[in-house]
């Protein structure tokens, strides 16, 4: 194939951005209460929960992918859920990818948000309570605004990490164009089949993207570091 197939390039990019976007939203929705609980609970076993959340940092993606495959497959709970709407399995579906990505990127979102919640301690919340703010009110009017740098960092890292995901996706998503064939898998594919130009475009794009993400995160960190407290 001599000329570029734009559709072949664009499809994984779009799919990846969609996946990262949905994953980031879900992580903010579900990760925030987890981060809040980890930051504020006095339960002894909370560090055990924190460890579970952080496991994807050290586990080989293939290990996580293997267990996810079992969970999402026809004989796991994922298969049971899929059965509710007449499908056989969640593995090798976009939904499956989202579930995998949420688990895999969880520590990158939860950790910065937890740190941000911990950084300001109990005091601002006590102050809010003495000023008639209910716990729910204080969470939104004090905790979330004060933890904004943590939310930003978490969202950026979660998004970026999902985009760079490979091993887990290979295990549970396979390589279905338009459904599970995301960027990193596409690059692998292009290289395997010696489509160097396409591989170059995607890989080069990722380099630029990663650079931008890390630079943005660092600059945000500096800005909040100077003015935030």
């Amino acid at each position, binding site marked *: 194939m001599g000329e570029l197939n734009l559709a072949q390039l664009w499809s994984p990019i779009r799919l990846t951005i969609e996946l990262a976007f949905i994953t980031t939203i879900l992580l903010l929705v579900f990760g925030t209460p987890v981060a809040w609980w980890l930051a504020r609970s006095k339960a002894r076993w909370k560090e055990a929960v924190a460890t579970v959340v952080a496991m994807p940092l050290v586990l080989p993606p293939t290990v996580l992918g293997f267990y996810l495959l079992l969970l999402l497959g026809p004989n796991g709970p994922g298969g049971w859920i899929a059965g509710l709407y007449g499908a056989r399995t969640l593995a090798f579906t976009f939904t499956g990818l989202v579930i995998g990505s949420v688990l895999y990127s969880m520590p990158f979102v939860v950790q910065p948000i937890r740190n941000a919640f911990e950084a300001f301690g109990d005091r601002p919340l006590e*102050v*809010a309570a003495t000023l008639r703010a209910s716990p729910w009110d204080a969470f939104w009017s004090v905790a979330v605004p004060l933890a904004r740098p943590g939310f930003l960092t978490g969202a950026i890292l979660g998004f970026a990490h999902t985009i760079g995901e490979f091993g887990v996706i290979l295990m549970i998503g396979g390589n279905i164009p338009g459904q599970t064939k995301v960027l990193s898998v596409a690059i692998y594919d292009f290289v395997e089949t010696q489509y160097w130009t396409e591989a170059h475009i995607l890989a080069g794009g990722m380099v630029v993207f990663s650079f931008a993400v890390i630079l943005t995160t660092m600059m945000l960190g500096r800005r909040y570091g100077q003015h935030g407290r």
Partner: protein
Amino acid sequence: MRESVPQISTAFAGTLGSFSLDVAFKMPMRGITALFGPSGCGKTTILRCMAGLQHLPGHFIVGDQVWQDSARSVFVRTHERPLGYVFQEASIFQHLNVRQNLLYGAKRAGNAPTSDALDFDAIVELLGIGQLLERSPVALSGGERQRVSVGRALLSRPRILLMDEPLSALDRMTKEEILPYFERLHQSLALPVVYVSHDIGEVARLADTLVLLSKGRVMASGPLEVLQTDPSLPLIAAPDAAVMLEGRVESIDETYALTTFSVAGGALVMPGRQGAPGAERRLRIAASDVSFTLTAASDTTILNCLPARIVSIDGAANEAQVNIIAALGADGSGARIAARITRKSQAALGLAPGTPVFAQIKSVALMR
């Protein structure tokens, strides 16, 4: 038995780690009550329990409002208690500017009834924070921050104001700058204030009622004028012991620039023009500035020479000195003052409880 005057009733008992607290006392519904004691005596814990930030068994009743009564399983959560709380260190919300900070509690308090006309402009004026409204808290000095937190607490229309060593994080200059604002609050608001402090200077300036604490227990509680001359309490034994007297400006001597104050049982003269006749002032007399004579001395440079009667003599001060409490007025019915004199002088004059004397007061200081 219920007393007819509404008051604040406090009782907390429990342990926090290795610290045990067991206190019960009552406070009037107006004026400043100081919880006074050394670090670690439990005063901040009591204040936090009053606010519901901490939970120890007991009760806390403000007038007709029961905020906690463990016997009846009543515990009103902090955000449902109409109180104002000023924390030890600046607790301004960093993500809001000064105006937004001030309005945070006001917005949530709604139209709760309040005894004072505490509107925004009046509070801002009272605390002198008008120029700061649009500023970010980052740009405020320590003293400004504490003034803003006091204003924020007041604007939430509290029934009671709790202050936890609000000046302890400030340097001496800033304290001096902020104390007059607190005194103005005291004069213009009917709000009861509980003021935690380990600084006798602050207590002497601000407090009307005193709760003396030591190691999680109440040593004594009552009006400042009573406790400050109670020989069984450590206040009088302190090296810099002094008494506070409430005085009213009677007249100004324009020729010599002297102000005469009337106090219970006598009159005191102080250099300078200390306010318009009728103004209420708090005066401080250090025990070391008081001496006694048996006859009225006329050939002395000391202006204040008042008839008084010895109330008690406490020889426990040290080897050389005794602490004497005397009551002003020839019949000894006036305000009580304290004096520290040598044992030798006491013996020479034959001073004993009931002895009529003249109290020579070398200097009087104006506290507020």
